[in-house]
């Protein structure tokens, strides 16, 4: 049984608008038998933070195209994407890409 972990979530580039405009969320993921991974975190966010219009945030099991995910200030592709196992006090950022000029 893995202990609960505290994770810092940030949303930016307009993605925060799906979360009542709140950019930073300090959350605690409950203890479970397996360690938390990013795939489970996305489901948890959908069930606990995202109130509506999930299609603007997720597509299939991953984030929708145009959202960049950063784990501890690095592109999540460098960290194993959906399979990355979250550690206590990780910082996860979801950034919507901007196109205006």
């Amino acid at each position: 049984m893995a202990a609960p972990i505290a994770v810092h979530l940030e949303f930016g580039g307009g993605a925060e608008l799906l979360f009542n405009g709140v950019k930073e969320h300090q959350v605690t993921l409950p203890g479970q038998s397996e360690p938390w991974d990013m795939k489970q975190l996305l489901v948890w966010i959908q069930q606990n933070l995202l109130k509506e219009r999930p299609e603007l945030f997720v597509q299939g099991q991953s984030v929708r195209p145009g959202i960049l995910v950063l784990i501890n200030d690095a592109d999540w592709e460098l960290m194993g994407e959906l399979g990355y196992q979250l550690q206590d006090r990780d910082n996860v950022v979801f950034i919507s890409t901007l196109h205006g000029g």
Partner: protein
Amino acid sequence: MSREVLLLKAQLKERDEEIAALKHKLAQLEKNHNSVQELYDRVTPLTPLTAKTALSNEDIMRYSRQLLVPQLAVQGQLNLSKTSVLVVGCGGLGCPLALYLAAAGIGRLGLLDYDEVELNNLHRQVLHGEENQGQAKALSAAQALKRLNSTVECIPYHLQLSPQNALQLIQQYDIVADCSDNVPTRYLVNDACVLSGKPLVSASALRLEGQLTVYNYHGGPCYRCLYPVPPPPETVTNCSDGGVLGVVPGIMGCVQALEVLKIASGQRTSCSQKLLMFDAQDAKFRSIKLRPKKADCAVCGEEPSVTQLVDYETFCGSAASDKCRRLNLLSRDQRITVQEYKSILDKAEPHLLLDVRPLVEVDICRLPFSLNIPLSCLEERKLEDVQLLKRRIDQLRQGRSGDFQPPVYVICKLGNDSQKAVQVMEKMSGSEVDAVTVKDICGGLMAWAKTIDSTFPQY
């Protein structure tokens, strides 16, 4: 010869010299003027930039304060003078970018924009002035830059970058700066840079945030490595919808100019395989390490599937401009024109005018008799808003027969959100609220301002 004749001859000679000097000055001015006035509406071959071997005394005086910076120095300045930069978009990013590149003494600036200057551009597109309204942005920018530094060659292109002209254009420049405002153009510029082997310094801004990355530089990733699939069009917000504080693209355009100058002068950029994010609200810059170039990238990978430019509007499902899309969700009998609504008002027919814009827009302007419930609150069925709606519908029904369905006319800025709201209201009608007849006002408040009430503000 009399003294008088000699005197006249001397005076005449003096006048001749004066005329010659004036003619020379006029010719110089006309030369500079004409070189700016020439606006390109298509891509033509350019003569190669000639490399300076040494700085002139005037160069030394003009650039002295940056020549003293060891990281630039004389060689860096000479490198700048032989570098050409294509600026894609002369708007909020392109203006400050081009301003600092011209000031720093870049050799040649291609200034591309298909659009004309409008009053609502001036808060952020700082090369253009009030007198330039209606003028091609590329030309307006070139004129402003010439005033700043007449030694920089400016080539204004009044055209839309397209799969047909992008390669021919980009091949003629050393560095490309993406200062565009829409998704299809960003993919087009990226692919054209990859296919022509040019570094791409790309920035974007919206509301109070900015982002910057250098693509396709010294083996680093390209735009498609990061974003292989374009975002769904409905998730993309442009500046005319979401708004932007002018200084935010100003800051991002300046950082973009900095990275262009570093590459042009012979230093390395710090922003390859990095995403520089700027949060103006918190005055915070953050630099993120990105993935390397992807072996399976569709355009810069090992076996690319994109080997020539494609149709980017189809690929992205959206138009290559930041103008608003016009939705068509309703049938003709679910909509009325602003003229029809005006006659309903004139006849004082009882109805409810429902304005579904966000509060920030209602603060700018509103029709005084409208009820404001933002579309998002309507979609959420916010309790207080549903109750308010119920009360207003009840008031309309008072003293009328039981089967009377009060008319509700829905309005927004341009007539897109109001159509969505009509669909929501139709679902609510007869269940969550008493039965009503719901219609959309085509073209919204901007159509009202254009055709009915010219004193109503446009934004």
